């Protein structure tokens, strides 16, 4: 009798315990690797906003975890693997430099799904996602050409990778459509996030005669410099108007939330599969911040261009595209450059007075 009671009690405890773990396992664990601190107010901040949107959307169905300030070196692989080992089944690695570490971990854990931002290596359990920011850069180029009195743009570059170079080229093509003689000065700061360096670069560009600052780095430091000096600037990644209420013309806003929600939903439904997503204005992978600090006609121009790009009527890299040497670049995509040409862009267009680093 006593034995029976014991067995019953044990069975009860066991069933509760098993039930408990089953309940916990039902929750989908989603992990994030961030490059900067969540308070960088730029790149990482936008990913963090999207993570918060996920929590709001799915509530108790998921549990999210992030690791911030993960350097793009040997530590990245460990950080990603730590997330896997903590039970995360869907992991977003949110910077280009995590590509190889993500791939290594993905090969080791075939049952975990990985989402890598802005890279080009994929596997059956590793997708990539990115946005066609060059479309926004083209609009910014037009605004800049209209608004610049000196005809000189200052451009803060991070790393000379295709994403950044296609941004510079799209800017110049947009600007040249307004003012064929527009000039651009470029400073490479070799970092994604270093407010001190970014501010120094902005100051140097203004001192060299530029009157509009554009950046491909993640902090609002350059915007603050422009505001102080009474010049104009474009924000990057996030809304930076509060750092430059009189300076910000517009900003490219990374809006990852819809994509993240779609991917988590697919994971919950069991329909997740490897994909290469490269969304533009039409799919709202990014948005333009309100057009501010400009006259109405410039605003109208920007809105028209945005509408044309969204509708697919205007392609920033429409052929012919001339290289720095004035020769026409091979046109693989019919009437515009092919996606693969943009994704591997390794040349400047005509009118960029700079030498590509390392070339």
């Amino acid at each position: 009798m006593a034995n029976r009671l014991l067995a019953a009690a044990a069975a009860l405890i066991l069933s509760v315990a098993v039930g408990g773990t089953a309940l916990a396992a039902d929750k989908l664990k989603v992990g994030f690797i961030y490059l900067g601190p969540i308070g960088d107010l730029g790149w990482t901040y936008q990913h963090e906003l999207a993570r918060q949107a996920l929590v709001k959307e799915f509530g108790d169905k998921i549990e999210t975890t992030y690791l911030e300030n993960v350097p793009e070196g040997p530590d990245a692989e460990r950080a990603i693997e730590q997330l896997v080992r903590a039970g995360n089944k869907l992991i977003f690695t949110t910077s280009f430099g995590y590509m190889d570490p993500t791939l290594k971990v993905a090969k080791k854990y075939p049952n975990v799904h990985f989402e890598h931002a802005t890279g080009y290596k994929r596997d059956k359990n590793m997708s990539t996602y990115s946005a066609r920011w060059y479309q926004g850069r083209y609009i910014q180029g037009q605004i800049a050409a209209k608004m610049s009195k000196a005809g000189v743009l200052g451009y803060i570059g991070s790393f000379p990778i295709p994403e950044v170079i296609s941004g510079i080229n799209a800017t110049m093509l947009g600007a040249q459509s307004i003012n064929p003689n527009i000039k651009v000065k470029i400073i490479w700061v070799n970092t994604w996030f270093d407010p001190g360096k970014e501010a120094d670069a902005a100051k140097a560009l203004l001192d060299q005669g530029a009157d509009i600052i554009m950046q491909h780095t993640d902090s609002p430091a350059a915007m603050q410099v422009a505001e102080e000096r009474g010049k104009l600037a474009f924000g990057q990644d996030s809304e930076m108007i509060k750092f430059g209420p009189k300076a910000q013309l517009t900003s490219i806003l990374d809006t990852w939330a819809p994509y993240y929600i779609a991917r988590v939903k697919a994971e919950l439904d069991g329909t997740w599969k490897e994909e290469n997503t490269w969304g533009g204005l039409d799919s709202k992978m990014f948005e333009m911040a309100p057009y501010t600090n400009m006259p109405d006609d410039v605003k109208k121009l920007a809105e028209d261009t945005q509408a044309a790009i969204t509708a697919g009527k205007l392609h920033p890299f429409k052929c012919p595209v001339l290289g720095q040497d004035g020769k026409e670049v091979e046109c693989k995509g019919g009437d515009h450059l092919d996606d693969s040409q943009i994704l591997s862009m390794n040349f400047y267009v005509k009118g960029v007075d700079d030498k590509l680093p390392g070339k």
Partner: protein
Amino acid sequence: MQLVLEKRAERSQTIALISPLIAIGLTIVTMSLLFVILGKNPLAALDAYSIAPLTDSYSLQEIAVKATPLVMIAIGLSLCYLANAWNIGAEGQFLIGAVAGSWIAVKTQGTEAGHWVLPAMLLAGAAAGALYALIPALCRVKFGASEILTSLMLVYVADLLLDYLVRGPWRDPAGFNFPTTAEFDPVATVPVLIEGGRLHLGAIIALLVVAGAFIVLGRTIKGFEIRVVGAAPRAARFGGFNADQLILLTFAVSGALAGLAGIIEVAGPVGHLQPGISPGYGFTAIIVAFLGRLNPVGILIAGLFLALTFIGGEQAQITMKIPLDVTKVFQGILLFYVLACDSLILYRFRLISASRQVHRGAG
């Protein structure tokens, strides 16, 4: 009234031994308070930081991987510091070692080169680190230039050289312009010790380095010389020891170890040369050297302990949602207490009355 720090006439051997334990105890108390303020369960947090990483083989491997470069560099630095030579530029020697070794890896990429590649890379890394460290050492010996300043400045030179190489001549042609070399060939890669893990041959080399330093410092005349020159330069001169020669030697050895650590890191966990291969190992190793009280075994423990706080910090972020900044505070507080406890072994606080001070001033 004035508070002064006064040297103790004698130091207690017992206190010296338990001082690190006192420091750890104080750290635990302070961090527990901080966790309570943050609204976290202090016991669970401390478990995530310091116990959980020790309970599975994966984390243990990662601790060893993280500690390997720290320990190797710190051993070299301890020799310098014991001899009263201040090498602050281990970070630069680490990078130069990585560059020199990578040169062989890049040049032999895709060729039929055999198993001599990795040993050659390790040798090149160590040699380059040693030569690079000899620059500030020679400047000090020949011109009396401060080795602290020159060795530190050479860090930036090494950093920019690496940057130039991976953006220019050595860039992976298939790498979409990103500043990195192609992945090294298998013959140019440090082998892992356990299949599927990241623990690599470098960990064993680091242990050999610790053992070597232990023997040199404890059992050889050279080790004695290093200690004497550092502790009592005048006595060393009477003893016929050549301090200049010793500066060159200790710098060369510490540079070689840093360079070796650099190429092991690149050919091991990273697998290719890229900027940012070191999250400040050369500087963190200075902390490790002092935390280990310039003693080889102490350095091994300190290196493992610091690595534990890194891994534990990540686990705390994952399991407890504790921000990374708290990990940095944790490391800072620990270092503060260790140094404070050590100082209080040698010194004590004393209140001096104003009248005495005036008297002393007049006298």
